[in-house]
């Protein structure tokens, strides 16, 4: 259902929740807004109707996104977005269910739901905005905080190793996995389109800047400085395939990392229903 029509630059404004006050609560320069912009453009380009989209989130800065958009918004509890989304999608398979989540929400408390949603290959699109920190609660470490990085709960440096959300998703069974950064806004939009269009579990990891906490605690500068570092450290997938592990240290591999078609959960279950009902309605 992708439309090739030219979008107007003010398309975002048409999708903002009526009667909600703007600007958003996010910090000045927060990548969440860039992702929201890309998300809305993607939905518009796909020609989806607002009523068919359910936007589900957990808790965190990123999870504040659904309230700002004019879709069926479901702001749930910390870590549980994918479980709620599974209920919505399974009960209403004709809807497009999009989950907006963060690194802590999806991979710490939500880790179990994350791997099972991937495993089921249920037709949900998860947009994981990874800012390597818990922003909403004031800058604690998250499962993607890099080794030795500082946070309020790793004041002497992080002694743990991080997840790679994309590898985790692929290993658990996701069939579309892509990564971009908020610097790469046009690519992000395209990936989100592909992810939503993809029939199966899709993950788009959007590497983003929390300059307020991660940036400040790790001397990464302001929003502009962090975006510039995303630009400098990003490596396109094709190039990354020619690089060694050593060369890729500290780099962000950007691109569609995995894209396969496999049987989807709701479809498989519908077959069971059809068999049990024996063709009678």
């Amino acid at each position, binding site marked *: 259902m992708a439309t090739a029509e030219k979008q107007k630059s003010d398309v975002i404004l048409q999708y903002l929740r009526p009667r909600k006050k703007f600007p958003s609560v996010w910090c000045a320069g927060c990548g969440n807004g860039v992702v929201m912009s890309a998300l809305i453009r993607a939905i518009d380009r796909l020609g989806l109707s607002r009523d068919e989209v359910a936007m589900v989130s957990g808790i965190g800065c990123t999870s504040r996104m659904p309230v700002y958009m004019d879709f069926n918004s479901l702001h749930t509890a910390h870590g549980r977005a994918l479980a709620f989304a599974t209920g919505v999608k399974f009960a209403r398979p004709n809807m497009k269910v999009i989950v907006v989540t963060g690194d802590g929400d999806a991979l710490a408390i939500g880790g179990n739901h994350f791997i099972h949603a991937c495993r089921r290959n249920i037709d949900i699109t998860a947009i994981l905005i990874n800012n390597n920190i818990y922003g909403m609660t004031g800058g604690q470490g998250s499962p993607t905080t890099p080794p030795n990085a500082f946070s309020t709960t790793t004041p002497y440096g992080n002694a743990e190793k991080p997840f790679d959300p994309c590898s985790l998703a692929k290993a658990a069974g996701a069939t579309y996995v892509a990564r971009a950064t908020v610097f790469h806004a046009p690519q992000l939009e395209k990936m989100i389109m592909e992810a939503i269009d993809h029939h199966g579990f899709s993950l788009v990891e959007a590497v983003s800047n929390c300059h307020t906490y991660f940036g400040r605690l790790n001397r990464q500068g302001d929003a502009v400085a962090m975006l510039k570092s995303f630009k400098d450290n990003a490596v396109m997938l094709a190039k990354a395939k020619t690089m060694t592990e050593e060369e890729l240290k500290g780099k962000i591999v950007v691109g569609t990392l995995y894209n396969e078609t496999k049987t989807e959960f709701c479809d498989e*279950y519908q077959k069971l229903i059809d068999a049990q009902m024996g063709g009678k309605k």
Partner: protein
Amino acid sequence: MANKKRKLMQGNLACVHGAIYAGLRFYAGYPITPSTEVAEGCARELPKIGGKFIQMEDEIASIAAVIGASVSGAKAMTATSGPGYSLMSELIGYAYITETPSVIVNVQRGGPSTGLPTKVSQSDTMQARWGTHGDYTAIAVAPSSVADTFAETVRAFNLAERFRTPVTILMDEVIGHMREMIAMPEPGELPVFDRVKPRVSPDKFVPFELTPNFVSPMPAYGEGYRYNVTGLTHDVMGFSTNRADEIFVKLDKLKNKIENYKNEIAKLRVEMMDDAEIAFVSYGTVARTALQAASIARKAGAKIGAIQLCTIWPFPDEQIVQLCARCRKVIVAELNMGQIVNEVRRVLPRDIQIHALQRYDGEILTPMQLLEKLEEVL
């Protein structure tokens, strides 16, 4: 009239059939003794009628999926036991504040913690009222037989839909696993209630509007009403708020919508109370024991009656006061260390003696034990 279908059925399965009768079309759950048969029954029965069953990765995911499905418009249920109910607590609170109709079955077993997976207790009674944090008003029902389980499950769904709230069905290991003959009601025999849908156009829709009965109409997904559902305390539009006046309105609404209709939600079974001077008060499994003990005692000349609480929460204050008005003594019998007895003490006047008979060793109270207690207090 044609013979109703009579079947020998397990309590857990009667819950499944009652739920389907009430319109259940979505079940998400996780196996846990002694509730597992509810999940297995739904796994078998739901696809036959185009319904959906999913075994989620844990109990938290289960209740999340149930709420998600219900918000989207389906009647949804999960079943568990004590440990699972504890896990679900946070999201049961989410269902309270978002006013999402849902049914949670707790087939109680011995606790705390892993406790006694295969033995009975009624020790989650208070948890059904206070399990999750915060201020809210709860509805919980407790069947006492297989046939009662069917009917109370239908009633639980109706209450959930009517009051836009989670409803807990407090079963226990004995009721869940016992088998009795049940005559399945015909369609139309028992009332089935659906949530009220909005009648205004989407642009005029106020998702959590304050109505005269405090229940806001609830649309399904895809009907043109797009609104925000959040666990944050919110205003009538569903937007989170920090304003004292809006917070008060929301929380007060959660209280009033149920408290104001306590008497309609209350349900008790009353036997031999007309001239009773002593009453047994009980619920669930113990209610049958109490009825048996009361019958025996009556034959021996004691003026004793039996009150069964079918609705546990909201606690039926007025009904208990009225029924026990002419009693001198009340014996509250429970399979726990004393939970409902405190409610009875709270509502009855000081001059009525209240005695507690408690058993918390994983076994059921016997009629003999109730009679011994009766002798003791006489």
